[in-house]
Structure formats: structure tokens, C-alpha cells
């Protein structure tokens, strides 16, 4: 009798788990489908090769090239800058530092930064801009986004490097390599897929984040010609144009949404193929 009750509970929860699983899959698929359906119809060659004519908020013609170009410039600039910053830090944590305590503190601090929401980076970027007398510009955006994605990149690189067993270090150093030689010729060679994944991770975040560019890169109809001009970005293109009363403007928002989604999916796939996971997290120290 008791067995029957136990078996029933098993069956019941199994169904419950199935429902949960299916619901989650359904919702996630729903999101992708919604974006695709709304976006596909608004995509056209014009849309991706032209800037908005008549202003991004009111103009009925033109496309989202301003945002596409702006986003790429911004994301590329920020990712490269962040990469240059992050790699040495990752080397410090894994190769150069002799003090375990320092390494732990730095990792904790990076953890804190990793958890800081992008809006705070945006607000800070704005602060710095005002203090330095900078205007809203691509450069300001790049700097702010660099600050945002550096902790993310460092963490990703660090995690990959940590998986390398100490044996490799011992082997390298026992052959007489300096720490620099070891880092570049041995360690890097071993973890370079993970490093590339880290870069892609940063790039993906840079191109998709809205809150950090809102106050710093601004928005514009044009493709920026210099670092000091404001730049449009895809997330803001969505945000600003979605609530327009003019349907053609809204179309641009949907187009921007599907373009952004496709870009992110490509990046995710690329990093997956490299063996990493785009959203790898770790909660323990």
C-alpha cells in the first residue's frame, strides 16, 4: 500500500518536471520566434545599408546602418581594448603572482566588478565624461564598455587558465623558461580556444548592452566618422525606435532586434564550436 503511494508520488513529480521542462523550452522558443517573425518582414537590403533619413525617430525612410556600424565600431574597439587589458591580468593571476593571498583578493575584487550592473558603469562613464569635459561620443562609449567587459573577459580567461594542471607549469619551468616565455609559448598555446571564447564573450556583451552606452555614446542618425562623434548602437536603436508612433520607425526597431539576435547567435555558435560556453558561470571561489 505504501509502495503504491510512493510510486504515485514518483509518477506525479515526473509529470510535473516534464511540464516545467516543456514550458521553459516553449517560452525560450517563443522568444526567438517572436523576434524572427516581427523582424524578418522588416528586413530588406535598404534596411541594412542605409541610415535613417529624416531623423531616426521621425524619418520614414532609410534603415539601421547607423546602428549596425556604430555597434561594430564600439564593440570592436571596446573588445580589443579590454583584451589588451585582460590578458596580462589573467597572466598575473596564474603565472606571475607569488602571493596566494593577493590572487584571492584580486579574484574577489574582479568578482565584485563582474556583478556590478551595466547601468552603474554607464553612470560612472558619464561622471568621468563630465569631469573631463568630454561630450557624448564613440570614444566615451568605448571606454565605458571596456570597463564593463574587462572583468568578464578576465574571469573567462582566468577560468580557462585555472584548468591547466600544475604539471604543465612544472614541465615548462624545469626546462628553464622564464615566466613570460612560459605564458606565451606554453600556456597560451594550451588555452587559446578558451581565450578566443573569452574575447567573443566580451564582444557579445559589448554589442548587446544598452545601459552602458546610453549616457556615453549617445545616439545619432549618422555613421560616426571619428571617435569624437556620437554613435548609434543596435540596442538603443531598438529601445528608442520601438515606442515611436510612426510604423516605419518601429519597423526599424524590429529590424535592429533581429540583426542583433542573429549576431549574438552567431557569436554563441562560434564560441561553442571552439569548445567554450558563452555563458559559463561559476558561483564558488
Amino acid at each position, binding site marked *: 500500500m*505504501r*509502495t503504491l503511494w*510512493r*510510486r504515485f508520488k514518483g509518477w506525479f513529480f515526473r509529470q510535473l518536471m516534464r511540464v516545467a521542462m516543456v514550458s521553459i523550452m516553449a517560452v525560450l522558443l517563443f522568444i526567438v520566434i517572436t523576434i524572427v517573425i516581427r523582424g524578418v518582414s522588416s528586413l530588406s537590403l535598404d534596411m541594412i545599408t542605409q541610415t535613417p533619413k529624416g531623423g531616426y525617430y521621425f524619418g520614414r525612410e532609410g534603415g539601421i546602418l547607423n546602428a549596425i556600424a556604430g555597434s561594430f565600431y564600439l564593440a570592436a574597439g571596446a573588445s580589443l581594448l579590454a583584451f589588451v587589458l585582460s590578458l596580462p591580468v589573467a597572466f598575473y593571476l596564474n603565472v606571475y603572482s607569488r602571493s596566494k593571498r593577493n590572487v584571492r583578493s584580486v579574484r574577489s575584487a574582479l568578482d565584485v566588478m563582474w556583478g556590478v550592473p551595466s547601468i552603474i558603469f554607464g553612470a560612472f562613464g558619464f561622471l568621468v565624461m563630465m569631469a573631463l569635459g568630454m561630450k557624448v561620443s564613440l570614444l566615451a562609449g568605448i571606454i565605458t564598455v571596456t570597463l564593463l567587459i574587462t572583468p568578464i573577459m578576465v574571469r573567462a580567461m582566468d577560468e580557462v587558465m585555472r584548468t591547466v594542471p600544475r604539471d604543465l607549469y612544472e614541465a615548462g619551468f624545469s626546462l628553464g623558461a622564464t615566466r613570460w616565455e612560459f605564458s606565451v609559448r606554453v600556456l597560451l598555446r594550451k588555452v587559446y580556444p578558451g581565450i578566443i571564447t573569452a574575447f567573443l564573450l566580451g564582444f557579445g556583451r559589448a554589442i548587446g548592452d544598452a545601459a552602458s552606452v546610453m549616457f556615453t555614446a549617445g545616439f545619432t542618425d549618422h555613421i560616426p566618422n571619428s571617435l569624437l562623434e556620437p554613435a548609434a548602437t543596435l540596442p538603443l536603436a531598438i529601445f528608442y525606435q520601438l515606442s515611436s508612433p510612426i510604423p516605419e520607425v518601429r519597423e526599424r526597431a524590429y529590424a535592429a532586434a533581429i540583426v542583433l539576435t542573429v549576431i549574438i547567435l552567431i557569436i554563441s555558435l562560434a564560441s561553442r564550436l571552439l569548445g567554450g560556453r558563452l555563458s559559463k558561470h561559476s558561483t564558488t571561489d
Partner: protein
Amino acid sequence: MAGFTPKISIRNLNVYYGQAHTLKNITVDIPDNAITAIIGPSGCGKSTLLKSVSRLLEISDDVRISGSVEVDGEDIYAARELTHIRKKMGLLSQRPTALPMSIRANVTFGMRLHKRIRKKRLAQRVEHYLKLASLWDEVKDRLDESASKLSIGQRQRLCLARGLAVQPEIILADEPTSALDPMSSQHIEQIFMNLKSEYAIIHVTHILRQARRLADYVIFMYYGEIIEHGPAEQVLDNPQHERTKEYVKGLIS
């Protein structure tokens, strides 16, 4: 083997892990109230054979099993309800895995699954089984502490107490002492000697001397097949098969 009514009868048991044919046509009887040792080089299917007796192989994907395993005359592979079958056989793994709960809860876990027992009787039972496993004196003052605080030897005895608490008829031990220090190993061996009068014990081991000390019957396995089986003195001291001779002499391991 002649001269006894088998507790477990295995006939034509074949186990496939994906493409690999892990157990090949196993046919053997296991006696009651005795210790049967399964010996042989590592990776030859000893653990697989052990787990097949308790239908524990099926929790992995990609496993195919054919043949029959009869316990007290009933084919367990024909049965639909697994919890009763598994309950009959206590499992002792190589690495003692305490449940993530207190010592007391570890012992009572299995008991409480199967029926409701009043608190007073629970306490009595806990004491009884911990004594059987020679652990009572060491833990009686800290029954509510987490089991993970015990030493590895103590944890193995706890696993034994926990397994005995569901009143099995058979004890399946998969290299139960290989992770333990010598003193704890001795403890376990002593307990097995005490228990064998009431249980059928199947003891997988790669330590020949341990088999000599404990076993009444021995099964020698090599690459998924049973090469030889019989009473301990016969297989260990007077093996018939070439391979068995090599193993027993230490020429292969």
C-alpha cells in the same frame, strides 16, 4: 558448484555497455550464509557482475542486459517493481558515500522509506545497527552531527549499518576496503565474518590475500567471463585452469 541450494542463480547473463560486451554468458550459483569472493584483474567486469545482481546497471544509459538472475527462485529481471528487489541487497561501494545528512539520518533513511516507525523504536534500531557495524561506541555521542565528519573507515561502517538497517538478505560489497587504512579494513573483514552466518555476501576484491582470509567460495573472472569457480581452497590453492593459476601466482594482475 555442487551441494547447496543457491541463494542466487545466474544463467546466461550478458551485459553490453554500448558496443562493449562487458559480461559474457555468465552462469554461476551463489550460496547463502557464506562469503563468495569475486577475484580477477581490474576492468574485467567484477563490479558489473555485482551490480547486475541488484539491477543497478540500468541507471546508466546505453546498457543492454539479457539472461536471468534468480534470487530465491524468482527472476529479478522479470519483475516490474524494483525497490523491493534492491532492498533485498545491501550495497557497499569502494568509496564510502555517506548520505548528506546526520549519522542518525543515514541509518534511518532506508528504514523510513519503507514503513513508518515510531521514534522510540527508531532510536533502538539505530543503536542496534550501529553496534552490528562496530560503530556505536565511536559515534553514540554525536549521532546528530553530519556524517561527512567521520573518517573514511567510520564512513564505510556507517554505510554498512545503513545497508543492514533495511534488512537485506544479501550483501554486495565492491572492493569495500580498498580505500581504507589497514585498521579499518580489518574491522570490515571482521564484521563480514560475523555476518556471514545470516547473509549471503558477495565480495569483489583484487586483494588475493583478503580472498584467502574471508572467502568460502571464489569466482575468478577474466575479461568478462568466468574462468573458474568453486570452493575457496580449491580455486586458490589448486586451480584447474591455466589463467587462474597465473593469476593466483601473481603472474598476471
